[in-house]
């Protein structure tokens, strides 16, 4: 019975990972990292495409 209930729930490790990565995401949002990511993605990265 115990094993059954353990199987049917969400693992603690999964929950902890969710909390950890959600915290990272929120930290990133708080320091306005998305704006920086977007600015980078607006420019052609010549190095990335093998030209720069």
């Amino acid at each position, binding site marked *: 019975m115990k094993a059954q209930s353990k199987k049917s729930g969400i693992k603690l*490790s999964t929950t902890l990972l*969710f909390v950890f990565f959600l915290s990272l995401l929120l930290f990133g949002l708080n320091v306005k*990292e998305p704006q*920086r990511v977007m600015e980078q993605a607006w420019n*052609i990265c010549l*190095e990335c495409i*093998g*030209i*720069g």
Partner: protein
Amino acid sequence: MEALRKLIQLIATLLTNSYFLFPVTHNIYQGPAKVICAPGLNCYSCPASTTYCPIGAIQQLLLSVRFSLETGSLFFSSYVVGTVGLIGTATGRITCGWLCPFGLVQELLYKLPVKTKVELPYLLRYVKYLMLVFFVVLMPLLLVNEWGMGLPWFCKYVCPAGTLEAGIPMIFLQPDLRATIGFLFYNKLAWMIIFLLWSVVTSRPFCKTTCPLGAFYGLFNKVSLIKLELNETLCTKCGHCADVCPMGIQFNEAVGSPECIMCMRCMREGCDFGAITLTCGGMHLLADNRRDRKKDKFIEQEL
């Protein structure tokens, strides 16, 4: 199921590459959607790309982390890592099997009729972890020039998706760039040709050996919310799951393997006994509906 998967792969590719004005503007998309993470490997310098590539973004943020700190910004790529971490925790490596454009390209090439198909040595699969640790994280972060800026090592020297989706199209769109073609471009072109040709004889060679994003997502396969599970009482260890697996895994011996891209071919085409099921948080979502019929047939044959 395979037809549905191909359709979803195609839709995902079109959604992450839906800027169709590039032949007119001769430039890449520069709108607000570029704040959205492409779940798969999709170069953001691709003229049609409407999203950012997490691997490219992580490198760009890490290579300029000193500059960011000096200007008072805390850009450690936490937004990007947080996003792909949440995707990985929720779905493991399902993105590789269902959403990645470069995965789709490799799968289509593998369908070409060639007499000899080759499986690669298992050891080569560990190269992708070296790519993730060194080329994506440590080298951009630590190997810096006199101004404290690093290089996007994976994008610059390896990524064949960038050459295919961005390098070659941009050369046609912006003729001025042709003058700058040199060793760097030919090196990347060579990698692209190697992986594309390799894909004809080996299933998903880039995903197996080199993709840092696949390596990252694979780490979550054992703990992800959505995953494939094995019912050991129904498994006969016949090995049919390995026959259909594009990643060369025998599922019953490698449950939660970081190599599994959750394409579900083992569940729908390989296993005749319903031993493999798709679960979400422990709840069964999908199982093979052929189970009872096939199991009865098997028992009849055994008798």
